């Protein structure tokens, strides 16, 4: 009985300690562990906020099986850089008007953050942001990809984004004629 009681107390203490921790540990699909500010994670990711609130955070590393270690490292890096830089009220108001509001321009550091990424890393990060419900990061990454598309010809787009042309020559010519104005350079 004595022992059991002691064990219960220890459990209790551990739980309190866990609740007091100001970081959460995330585990990538390939088993790597990353620490991220709990406050930033909850503020920037609706999914992580839900898990923290719901108590489904594992102290030994919360499994995020859909996210590889490189993408998760970028997510964590982004969260930690972002810690305390945007008040949550701003995020809340942005999500209310989300469907019609003009897009917000990324901040300078956010630009730099995505500029240094390789093509594949950027795409993986978009998906990770989407999976974790990170609206702001999704905004920043989608903005970057749209920048990559701006002013490019359909040929260039296919090359950069690895898309196969499934049109016949005749169909392409038809589209070009129909939308001739869009193909002129300004």
């Amino acid at each position, binding site marked *: 009985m004595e022992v059991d009681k002691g064990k219960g107390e220890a459990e209790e203490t551990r739980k309190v300690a866990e609740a007091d921790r100001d970081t959460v540990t995330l585990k990538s699909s390939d088993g790597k562990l990353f620490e991220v500010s709990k406050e930033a994670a909850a503020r920037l990711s609706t999914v992580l906020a839900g898990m923290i609130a719901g108590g489904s955070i594992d102290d030994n590393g919360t499994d995020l099986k859909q996210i590889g270690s490189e993408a998760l490292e970028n997510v964590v890096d982004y969260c930690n850089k972002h810690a305390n830089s945007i008040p949550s009220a701003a995020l809340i108001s942005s999500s209310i008007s989300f469907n019609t509001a003009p897009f917000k321009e990324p901040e300078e550091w956010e630009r730099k953050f995505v500029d240094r990424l390789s093509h594949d890393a950027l*795409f993986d990060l978009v998906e990770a942001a989407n999976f974790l419900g990170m609206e702001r990061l999704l905004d920043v990454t989608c903005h970057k990809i749209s920048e990559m598309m701006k002013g490019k010809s359909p040929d260039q787009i296919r090359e950069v984004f690895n898309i196969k042309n499934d049109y016949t020559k005749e169909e392409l010519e038809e589209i070009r004629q129909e939308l001739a104005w869009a193909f002129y350079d300004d």
Partner: protein
Amino acid sequence: MEGRFESQMACSPPAKRRPTHGPTTAGAAALLPTDMLFDVLLRLPAKDLCRLRSVCRPWRALLAADPLFADAHAARHRAPLLLARFRSSSSDARVHVVDLSSPGGAAAVVTRVVATADGSCGRASTSGDSAVAVGGIVYFKVDKVYHSMLVEGVDPGILMDCVFSFDLEREQCWKELDGPFGASIVAGDYDDDFGDYHDLWNQLSFGELRGSLVLVYFFGHRSVMDLWVLEDFEKGVWVKEFSIQTESILCMTEVCHVEALFGLDDGRLVIHLGEVLLIYDSGTDTFEEVEMGPLDAVAMYTGSLLSSQLRNRV
């Protein structure tokens, strides 16, 4: 978007990717799932998107035929579109769509020829000189005959800035309104001041602001453009909303006439002056000339560049 996040909060497995990019080559690099591609493409200007229809069939389906996408795009790209007809092309009477959202905002891009019709698209503005339709009512200013009457010494019995209205729905003449300033100007003996009085007739034109009639009174030689808004049609209440200093565009104002004027949603004014198009920002009190060919007529365009059909509401 919201739904997407919610489903993931419940920790459901991610939706299976739909093949949005069309067939890919072997060893494909990372591809974007549909909804993220949607988010990315939403950020591009309409002109880029029209060009990107030729990337592959799935993109065309999204960019040319998806009303959801077109609506979402329109909601996020609120930059005004104008219909314009140019003097140089007046022989074939084509109407162009002008996109004012180009980077930097200074230069407009003539993007698309939408009609080879008789120019009916531009009716609201081609006629802004002597008549304008606002909210189902057509307003006319006094005719040239008025001028002839004055020359011949006949008292026309009305003032120079008198405005006549015609109700389009009821198909009847409604009422004549006294203009905002005629009385004070012609109170004296206007025979002595005949030159000015004649000028007044030339200096008047119509415009539209937030659904109300605007009487534009442009003294080119004094570099002032007054905008009188008809606040109350029944009582004939005019309010001088703007008195714009036009020194900065002086070189073109001496001999020019305001052909059309209308307000944009963001409060800026589009002014068709002579052959040029100016955007006036009352906040900064600056004019910006839209770079394009000599303008014949202009009107607002509320359709979408993404839709194949011209939604012709002017």
